[in-house]
């Protein structure tokens, strides 16, 4: 207590002195007629401190670029993955090696087999007239054309072939491509650019998917071959959309789907297209030369005038028994592709003998329309014959030359389904000499439809071939699928 009091006194005295010193002279200071009080000085100091702090740059840790030594260390440490994944034991595709032409009957390992694995719909493989025209072409022009279409790779047979196909279909012009699958994935990016809208079926095959991806447009898929789903998708996309003049809009469908054998109902698609103002791109690889009274394709089959379909593409590796592809439509459509289609401009042209084979094939079809009736009756026969196969059901259309059999009850995984189907196909070949194949899927394929066994019917098959295939398939699937049914 005694010691505290002097300290307290001293502190009070000091404070009094400070405040007096503080207040006294300044209390009487008058600057420009404004009384300056003591507290104004404190506030002034605070403002000065704030301004000083604000004006200083905030502290950022300096960005030091990596030194050469550090980059060297990183490069040494980095380990790449192997270029390809290690070989899996079960993935073993060992295709049969054919020793003769892939016609309705072919030779595998010295044995003659009935061939249901080639899309030789009109039976033109081995046709005399086709081979003669090819021989003539080979002797005159050699094998390859040695150049792209723009630079002396255009041979007069190409122009003849284009004119022939356009004439056959009733369109103004057509354009030839040098490879079947490159047709559709060059045509789609030539017309569809970034910002356009494409409505496509979800069951389209890989080449169409690749074309849609390369086009960078907005792609909307609708349920496989479901017109109600297509109508609702189109409605959703166009409702409230005022910018119709600037956006190009396309519907992409296949006539006969490779992944399921279904046929697209073209008359309903054309009605929808006209209502919502979309252009149609129709992929006719498996229906050209097959559907329609004279083989002119899906449009003839449904009685739709050909000029209602904007772009038709097809690969010639099926009914026409040659290779390459074509695209046809209005003159504007065809002309546009001559400069903007990557697969046409930047690639060597179709070998001339294949173009002359195409011309003879179309001539043959025009002169012998009865071959279509043969094909149709074969397809009907196979359909009825396979309708009661144990464990498998036909999921393709009755008129489709691709007869698609899928498992009645799937095992749940794609790989095991495929294993079962391939076992069936192998045994059918080994025991009964009937060559059929299970449809295979690439890892890049986004299609979700089930896998199955595909039989490609040809007009060259006889009734005995078909009944042999039916009985063999029924027997083998009964034994293989007995524990899975």
């Amino acid at each position, binding site marked *: 207590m005694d010691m505290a009091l002097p300290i307290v006194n001293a502190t009070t005295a000091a404070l009094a002195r400070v405040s007096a010193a503080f207040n006294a002279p300044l209390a009487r200071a008058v600057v420009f007629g404004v009384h300056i009080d003591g507290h104004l000085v404190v506030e002034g100091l605070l403002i000065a401190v704030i301004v000083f702090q604000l004006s200083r740059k905030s502290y950022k840790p300096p960005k030091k670029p990596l030194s050469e030594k550090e980059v060297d260390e990183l*490069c040494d440490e980095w380990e790449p993955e*192997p*270029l390809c994944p290690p070989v899996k034991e079960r993935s073993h595709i060992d295709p049969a090696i*054919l020793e003769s*032409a892939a016609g309705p009957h072919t030779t595998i390992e010295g044995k003659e087999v009935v061939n249901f*694995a080639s899309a030789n719909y009109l039976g033109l493989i081995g046709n005399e007239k086709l081979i003669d025209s090819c021989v003539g072409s080979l002797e005159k022009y050699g*094998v390859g054309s040695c150049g792209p279409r723009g630079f002396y790779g255009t041979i007069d047979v190409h122009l003849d072939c284009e004119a022939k196909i356009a004439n056959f279909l009733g369109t103004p012009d057509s354009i030839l491509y040098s490879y079947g699958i490159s047709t559709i994935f060059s045509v789609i990016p030539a017309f569809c650019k970034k910002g356009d809208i494409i409505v496509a079926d979800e069951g389209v095959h890989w080449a169409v998917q690749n074309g849609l991806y390369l086009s960078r447009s907005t792609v909307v898929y609708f349920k496989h071959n479901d017109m109600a789903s297509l109508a609702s998708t189109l409605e959703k996309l166009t409702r409230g959309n005022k910018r119709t003049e600037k956006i*190009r809009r396309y519907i992409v469908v296949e006539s006969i789907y490779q992944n399921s054998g279904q046929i697209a109902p073209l008359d309903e698609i054309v009605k929808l297209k006209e209502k919502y103002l979309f252009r149609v791109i129709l992929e006719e690889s498996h229906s050209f030369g097959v559907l329609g009274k004279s083989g002119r394709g899906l449009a003839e089959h449904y009685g739709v005038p050909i000029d209602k379909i904007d772009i038709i593409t097809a690969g010639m590796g099926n009914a026409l028994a040659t290779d390459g592809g074509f695209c046809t439509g209005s003159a504007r459509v065809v002309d546009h592709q001559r400069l903007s289609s*990557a697969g046409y401009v930047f690639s*060597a042209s179709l070998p001339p003998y294949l173009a002359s084979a195409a011309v003879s094939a179309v001539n043959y079809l025009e002169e012998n329309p009865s071959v279509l009736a043969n094909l149709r009756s074969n397809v009907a026969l196979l359909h009825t014959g396979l309708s009661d196969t144990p464990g498998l059901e036909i999921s393709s259309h009755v008129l489709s030359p691709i007869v698609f059999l899928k498992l009645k009850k799937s095992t749940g995984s794609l790989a095991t389904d495929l294993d079962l189907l391939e076992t069936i196909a192998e045994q059918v070949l080994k025991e009964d000499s009937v060559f059929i194949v299970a449809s295979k899927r690439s890892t890049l394929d986004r299609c979700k439809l089930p896998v199955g066994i595909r039989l490609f019917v040809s007009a060259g098959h006889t009734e005995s071939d078909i009944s042999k295939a039916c009985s063999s398939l029924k027997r083998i699937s009964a034994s293989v699928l007995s524990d899975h049914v």
Partner: protein
Amino acid sequence: RVEGSEEDGEAPVPVTALTTLFSYGLLFAFGHFRDFFRRILDAGKSSNLKGYAPICLGYEDFYTRRLYLRIQDCFGRPIASAPDAWFDVVERHSNDGNKTLQRTTKTSKCLNLGSYNYLGFAAADEYCTPRVIESLKKYSASTCSARVDGGNTKLHTELEELVARFVGKPAAILFGMGYVTNSAIIPILIGKGGLIVSDSLNHISIVNGARGSGATVRVFQHNNPAHLEDVLREQIAGGQPRTHRPWKKIIVIVEGIYSMEGELCNLPEIMAVCKKYKAYTYLDEAHSIGAVGKTGRGVCELLGVDPADVDIMMGTFTKSFGSCGGYIAASKEIIHHLKHACPAHIYATSMSPPAVQQVISAIKVVLGEDGSNRGISGRI
């Protein structure tokens, strides 16, 4: 030394540049002028595609309509014979100012310096053509089926072994078209999380394949190993964009001979850089296979690079072998993987058997296995 010459790739003289740009400017101005009047005159006309957006909007096809059409007769000239050393070019005439061209029956014989016929196999050949015709009669023009289904013939397996032997790799796989080879293979080898470093002047099939794969693409200056090294160092150290995770793998894509410039690739140095940084190499020998090298085995032979060092060698049969199609040669594991995964192998029609036979015969001639010395003597 001629004044203003373009030796060493120097920029053209100012007068040349000015006159060229002036000509272009004139053509552009005229084109716009005519478009303007065309729009006024056509405003009243209606086409039956009312409501649809036009196929080409605005100036997308300006170049085609106003510039290209004027000189259209220089391109796409049809020929009426094989693209051999001398060939017949069909004459065309136009009635409507070059908008459409009609063929005439007249042809003119010209010296051919425009076709890719490096070894002269384009026309009928004494060794190749009889065998091709024989295979045509045996296997027909097409198999109508994919390789994995019913399109695999003895010829295809024979050619794959022959190509692998010719190029110097363990195994090979065939495709029916060179363009599809590149654009369908690259997405299988590399995907998202990988890096593709490609030469700035690569062909569009490689560009399309790289784009379709989903990997990040970086470009290095044409034939410049130093810049390639810089790019690789920067990318490996930086990692993937935004996440900076390390790259899964890096593929460097170069071509043997660049078709637009006619230059050879600087292969030994580029290979050294790739080896140092553990990047995989992809060599596109579309123009060089069969055409360069002492025995025609391509740039590797010419520049002394061991084929075992290059991870993937791609080539086409269109140029030197007078046929069509392409191939990929690599190790057995890679080819096995491609055969199971590549969509072009699983879905596309297999190569036409006569074309396969043409390549087999051509390679045999080049190797000297046909019994003659045409290949060895260099006078094919």
